[in-house]
């Protein structure tokens, strides 16, 4: 649980973050969206005190984040940034081990944790551990960056545009990996991005920031359905709204009775993907299969179109 209460940051006359309050539930992902200069990165950096607030309090599990020295606080919070920030003079294994080493873990425990994380991220510890960051691809570097942030088993992970430097295909993969790992460790994640698509896809809740103020903080469906201001509306993108709404739902939730011809779509796929497939193949309905491959029913164009309409 992270409680942000009346946080303000001023540099001389300019107010970068203006009286922001929000509450982030444990084991959820909160995404902070905004244009550049909206104060979203500053807000994030005040949580681990890379920036000290001018006013207000931030509590982590009930404890004021100023009750520890800054560097000790930061060791307990994961931190991943755009362009990964890996140390070029240290090997992949040494990079991942950074915080455990700072915390003074014993060697065996560090090695076990590094191997675990690398395996989790599909990097063979034997092959990749001794390499240097410049020998990896962009996607691999990003994965090492996140693995490093998770090394000391933090409850909270802060991410500043972690996928910003990746190409679209690698970015999708990285987002899926992060969602899977968040489920596995139950980490509370606060992620900063300027990409609404990413926000809708990743966030349990989305915080929209504009000129230092928190404009709206709600579930993605609500942000799409009831944008609090013209700014949020623009950010969502009027022409994208129905598709973003569909991307929130799974096919299994839109299943109707009946059968259809052709190859089945998995129940886990997003409704947006199902609609795209229907439109592209020119068919009125698609069969749906469950995880075990058994047929669940079908999805229809009509059914999905109804779901894409503005909620009442």
């Amino acid at each position, binding site marked *: 649980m992270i409680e942000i209460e009346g946080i303000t940051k001023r540099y001389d006359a300019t107010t970068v973050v203006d009286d922001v309050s929000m509450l982030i539930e444990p084991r959820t992902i909160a995404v902070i969206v905004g244009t550049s200069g909206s104060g979203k990165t500053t807000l994030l950096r005040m949580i681990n005190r890379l920036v000290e607030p001018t006013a207000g309090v931030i509590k982590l599990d009930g404890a004021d984040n100023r009750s520890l020295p800054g*560097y000790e606080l*930061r060791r307990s919070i994961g*931190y991943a940034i*755009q362009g*990964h*920030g890996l*140390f070029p003079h240290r090997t992949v294994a040494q990079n991942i081990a*950074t915080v455990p080493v700072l915390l003074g873990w014993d060697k065996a425990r560090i090695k076990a944790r590094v191997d675990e994380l690398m395996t989790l991220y599909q990097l063979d510890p034997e092959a990749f551990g001794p390499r240097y960051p410049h020998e990896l691809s962009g996607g691999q570097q990003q994965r090492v960056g996140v693995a490093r942030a998770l090394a000391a088993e933090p409850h909270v992970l802060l991410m500043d545009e972690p996928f910003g430097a990746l190409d679209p295909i690698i970015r999708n993969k990285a987002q899926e990996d992060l969602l899977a790992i968040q489920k596995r460790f139950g980490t509370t994640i606060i992620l900063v991005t300027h990409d609404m698509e990413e926000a809708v896809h990743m966030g349990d809740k989305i915080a929209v920031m504009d000129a230092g103020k928190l404009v709206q903080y709600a579930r993605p469906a609500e942000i799409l359905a009831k944008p609090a201001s013209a700014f949020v509306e623009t950010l969502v993108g009027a022409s994208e709204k129905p598709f973003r709404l569909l991307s929130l739902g799974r096919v299994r939730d839109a299943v109707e009775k009946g059968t259809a011809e052709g190859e089945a779509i998995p129940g886990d796929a997003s409704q947006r993907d199902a609609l795209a497939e229907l439109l592209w193949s020119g068919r009125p309905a698609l069969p749906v299969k469950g995880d075990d491959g058994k047929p669940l029913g079908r999805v229809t164009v009509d059914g999905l179109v109804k779901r894409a309409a503005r909620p009442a």
Partner: protein
Amino acid sequence: MTIRFDKLGVVIAAIVAYAAFAAPFATFRANRIVPGEARSILESLPTAVGPSLLEIVVIAAIIALLKTPLILRLVASVVALAALAILIGVAGDFLTPEGNTFARISPASGFWLLIFAFTLLLADVLTRLNLSPWARVGVLVVAALAIGLLLVSGSWNSLSILKEYANRADSFWAEGSKHVTLALGSLAAAAVVGLPLGILCHRVDKLRAGVLNVLNIIQTIPSIALFGLLIAPLGWVATHVPGAASLGIRGIGTAPAFVALFLYSLLPVVANTVVGLAGVPRAANDAARGMGMTDRQRLFGVEFPLAFPVILTGIRIVLVQNIGLATIAALIGGGGFGVFVFQGVGQTAMDLVLLGAVPTVALAFAAAIILDAVIEMTSTRRREVQTA
């Protein structure tokens, strides 16, 4: 098959042609200060040897001139250099009249040009071979051993520069060690003061411009003037600060030379520290802070290792510069190889000047090669592909 020329080879062949056939190979003087008489290769060497040297030199020049395999060029340059090095000693023996201890034989412009031409060829080959740092140091050691062997064997003893050495063997090594102590000591002092100062300048913006400007101004003071300027303040310190004189601090001598070299060394050390630290990637620095490194851990764990190759480059500049500048210390009684240079100038004895100048150049050259190798090793360590 068409004949193709090597670009550098054309230059080398031209130099060799002039040096071997038109320039004097050795100079003969009746005593150490009278003007010399020029001797060509054929005149300088016994009848059987002279033509062979010409042959070796001409063949090596042709190999350099044409596009030939690297290994052949390497052999040609090494053989030519070795032949020149050995035969200049033979020329010394051959030209010295029996029992005459006043006559002086020294290498002349033709000899030096030939050495220059084939060193150029060798350097070109070594660059193209793209040797590893260790291999380069290895080549340096082999060259040093070869020269050492020739010196110890006595085959150069009839040359004038070694006759000057024979007269001053004791003071040569004393001044040599003083020279090295001055150059290395002032470098060490500059590193001890300059590194923290550079870190401070990196952290405190306001300090940076001021400190670098002052150091820049010091660099522009001509060295002789700086040595002179230090005489008064250090003389004052020696007479007024108790214990200073007993530490060896005086207006003239080693102290002002040391201080001047130290001051000259500061700018490269401080400037390179600042530049190196500024070049540390922002993201790496931000990540280091974000993961909970203290300022000290960040400095020693991230910033310093990443800035190290740049800082070492500064140290290399200082070391080479100091080895050269320390020559001037002799002017104010600071000792070093400069003693022979200035004595030689005073007596118009060029051989004595060379006795001071040649070791200085050799030292600077060796220092540059070794530090370049170290710099390359520290900056490529993280780039090596580890095959485990």
